């Protein structure tokens, strides 16, 4: 029969495979090496600038002025750190690293906690209540996505000024904490919580506040953690609004202070790169640590909110 494959037809197949395997083995290794080289190049591209900042903070400022960053590690790190933390950049004596770090913390925590609290409250109201204008409220909140701070900065500033909130923590934090993304995120999560839960709670006689605090909030722990990480980083890194609202130096945050730091480098005397670089590192360290250590939650929160 013609269709039965003969041995001669079949025989080469394993041989071919073997030959291909032999030929391909080194190629796979090369491919793997290229992968690693690309990734290492990428990692260096990301890492090099911060290593440079660190290196520059260990050598004397006079040397930087002459030769810039190098590969030499000096002994000035601790004196520079001390200067960055305790010595003020300006005459007021209030723009010390320590002070700005505290202000950044207040902003980061206030921003994250504020956003989460009011977003959860709003999402709870929209999802769990028979509310006639629930849809309207949802759309009102959602449409704020169309109005980033930058496009309404001048009138927002004026309102805050009229309310007498310039240079207050309230004025700095409250206008920023309305959040369409966080509300939407919690709404989606609440919708996925089984219906039976609220039914059971009601049968057991739990009212809406009791259900929210004792059942729903504890249930949302992971969501809250993910959201907190994202929002802490986001709040810590705020720049435009603090620059407008906090003009008293005692309220400067680290990120906001970067501009003053840069301006300080322009003076006629020796630019203090050692101290400035440490302040810059201080400005990125807490959010970076949060992102690195809580990576899994962070990635989950980020990819879930934005989608």
């Amino acid at each position: 029969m013609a269709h039965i494959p003969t041995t001669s037809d079949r025989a080469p197949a394993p041989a071919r495979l073997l030959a291909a395997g032999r030929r391909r083995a080194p190629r796979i290794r090369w491919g793997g090496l290229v992968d690693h080289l690309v990734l290492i190049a990428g990692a260096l591209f990301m890492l090099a600038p911060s290593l440079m900042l660190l290196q520059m903070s260990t050598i004397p400022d006079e040397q930087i002025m002459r030769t810039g960053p190098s590969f030499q590690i000096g002994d000035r790190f601790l004196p520079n750190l001390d200067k960055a933390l305790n010595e003020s950049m300006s005459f007021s004596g209030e723009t010390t690293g320590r002070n700005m770090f505290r202000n950044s913390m207040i902003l980061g925590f206030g921003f994250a906690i504020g956003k989460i609290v009011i977003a959860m409250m709003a999402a709870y109201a929209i999802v769990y209540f028979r509310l006639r204008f629930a849809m309207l409220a949802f759309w009102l909140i959602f449409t704020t996505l169309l109005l980033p701070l930058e496009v309404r900065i001048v009138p927002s500033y004026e309102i805050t000024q009229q309310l007498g909130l310039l240079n207050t923590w309230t004025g700095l934090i409250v206008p920023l904490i309305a959040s369409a993304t966080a509300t939407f995120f919690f709404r989606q999560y609440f919708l996925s919580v089984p219906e039976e839960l609220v039914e059971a709670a009601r049968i057991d006689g739990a009212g809406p506040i009791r259900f929210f605090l004792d059942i729903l909030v504890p249930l949302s722990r992971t969501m809250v953690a993910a959201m907190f990480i994202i929002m802490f980083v986001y709040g810590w890194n705020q720049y435009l609004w603090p620059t407008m609202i906090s003009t008293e130096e005692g309220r400067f945050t680290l990120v906001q202070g970067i501009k003053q730091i840069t301006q300080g480098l322009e003076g006629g005397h020796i630019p203090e790169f050692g101290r400035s670089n440490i302040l810059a590192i201080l400005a990125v360290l807490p959010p970076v640590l949060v992102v690195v250590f809580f990576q899994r939650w962070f990635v989950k929160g980020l990819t879930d909110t934005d989608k």
Partner: protein
Amino acid sequence: MKRAGFANPWLPVLLLLPQLTIICLFFYWPAWQAVRSSFFLEDPFGFGETFVGLQNYTRLLDSTQYMKNAWFTLWFSAVVTALSLGIALLLAVKADSVLRGARTYRTLLMWVYAVAPPVAGFIALIVFNQRWGPLTEFFAQFGWEIRIRLEYFDTAFAMIVASVWKQVPVNFIFFLSGLQSIPPAVREAAMIDNRSAVSRFWTVTFPLLAPTGFFLLIINITYSLFDTFGMIDTILRNNPGDQPVTLVYQVYLDGFRGQDIGGSSAQSVVLMVLVLALTVFQFRLVERRIHYT
């Protein structure tokens, strides 16, 4: 809404109140103010205002400075978006394919997400320092003498490098999570059908990543428009001169430095329309995305 919702009439209102108050006070009211004052010319000393119709808008169109910055914003966004998407996709594909050290690479490639834009600007000022900046020295070897804050193109170049550096991690995170959500069965089937990794990437992986890519496209454009503010402000230090600035930065300059409320408001309205267009575009893509997956 849940079927078994609570029927309490005042509690939901109370729960919504903080969010809605802030939104009305600091979002809708200012936005309305911006729209309104874009049709008025305000006296610089604060004594009243006159209705001028569309004059603030036509003034924008006639301003060479504004058109120049609009043009800059356009190509700046395009270049930043293209570069950061491309680099991030390459890195994500590689990070997805290596077996050893995948976690370490992931951490090393994503931490810059947390760096504030002004710090990116600060770093740009150092690496492009005119006397000894490492990148200045590098490009000097090719005969290109970089002078940021003096030469228009050089400043733009530094801004692009800083923005790409800052934006690659976000795209990387999304691309990697997109790659990891491709079912193993699909990968294995592709493996069997197609031996070439390159052709496998373009025919299987890339189309599957396209929805993530479209979504990131919008994110990146929005980033280049708005989130670069702090970086630009740090590089230019209130002194833009004739250096490149984005349209968002110009709103700030005209509104706060120039005290031209009408003109600045008209620019805000232009940007609102732009964001609206981007959002509508994004939603249409999201709708199509559901078809894909």
